[in-house]
């Protein structure tokens, strides 16, 4: 198996909580290393308390049985690791994608994923999973979920 094949296989694993994006698009696959028939996958959780952590690890092991999966809990993941394709998929599914960190620090603008309006208000910093906040769009009068920028 080549590294490219491993990446392609991992592209097919959906995020268990937001299945419109794959683990690769979510940016949680930190590295794939293949040598001498040995496959080593480094995987970082989004949030440390993510209950899907074990589930994702098992999904990788099932998809690439020869892989040895290492969970890395350093600070290498941020929402900036979500790929452009992943962001667009989140948006079309009704999740406002996280703004890049540098942008979010300088502005408090949050855009509605449905109508694009920036006239939105915070309903709750916390939502159904650790990575989401709840907002309301005053433009199209629609509540929506905002992927937190971290």
């Amino acid at each position, binding site marked *: 198996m080549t590294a490219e094949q491993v990446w392609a296989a991992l592209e097919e694993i959906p995020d268990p909580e937001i299945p419109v994006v794959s683990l690769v698009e979510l940016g949680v696959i930190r590295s794939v290393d293949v040598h001498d028939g040995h496959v080593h996958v480094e995987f970082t959780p989004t*949030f*440390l*308390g*993510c*209950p899907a952590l074990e589930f994702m690890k098992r999904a990788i092991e099932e998809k690439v049985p020869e892989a040895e999966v290492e969970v890395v*809990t*350093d*600070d290498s*993941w*941020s929402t900036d690791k979500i790929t452009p394709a992943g962001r667009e998929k989140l948006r079309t599914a009704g999740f406002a994608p996280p703004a890049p960190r540098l942008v979010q620090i300088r502005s408090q603008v949050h855009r509605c994923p449905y109508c694009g309006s920036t006239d939105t208000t915070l*309903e*709750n*910093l*916390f*939502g*159904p*999973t*650790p990575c989401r906040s*709840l907002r309301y769009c005053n433009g199209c009068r629609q509540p929506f979920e905002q992927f*937190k920028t*971290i």
Partner: protein
Amino acid sequence: MNELLLGLADDELVIGWRDSEWTGIAPMLEEDVAFSSIAQNEIGHARAVYELLADDADALAFDRAPEEYRCAPLVELHLLDWAHTIARRWLYEVADEIRIAALRDELPVAAKIDREEPYHRLHAEMWHERLKDEPRFREAVRELWPYALGVLDPGQRAALAARVGLDEVDAVERGAHDASFAALHDEMTMVRRSAPAGAQW
């Protein structure tokens, strides 16, 4: 270092447990969600730090006798009213920020924890802003202040006092447990004790 990390992990586990007690009974639905989510994060932080200290995080988290836990009494208190609960959340987040900032350069997982914490701090600050002039809240902060100091090593307490705007007093130190901890420990370890070793979930 291990003693410090065990204290940190025990703090996060126990405050996560205490915060989760508001799930379903918080004064408003948003806070049910917020406290549940914060509790989940804190317990996740505890797990990540336990994993640094032991091969089996669950064994370290749940197989110790009550007197072996290193958590600060602040996180153990069984608080049944909102003013005290918010006072603790706010004091704990300020103290935890000072502690994590001191660790983040040498400990990768501390940097990861620090990345998640701004949302807890925002939540605590929003509530602090809302309640800071309420007499009941100010009284709760004063009451919990000696406990909050006990979260940090003595060398970090001046920074906490400056942030909170109160004078340093004698701290309620780690080591002794609050009377309510025995019942909490019993509840927290119940599932683990009732399942045979090696049970799969």
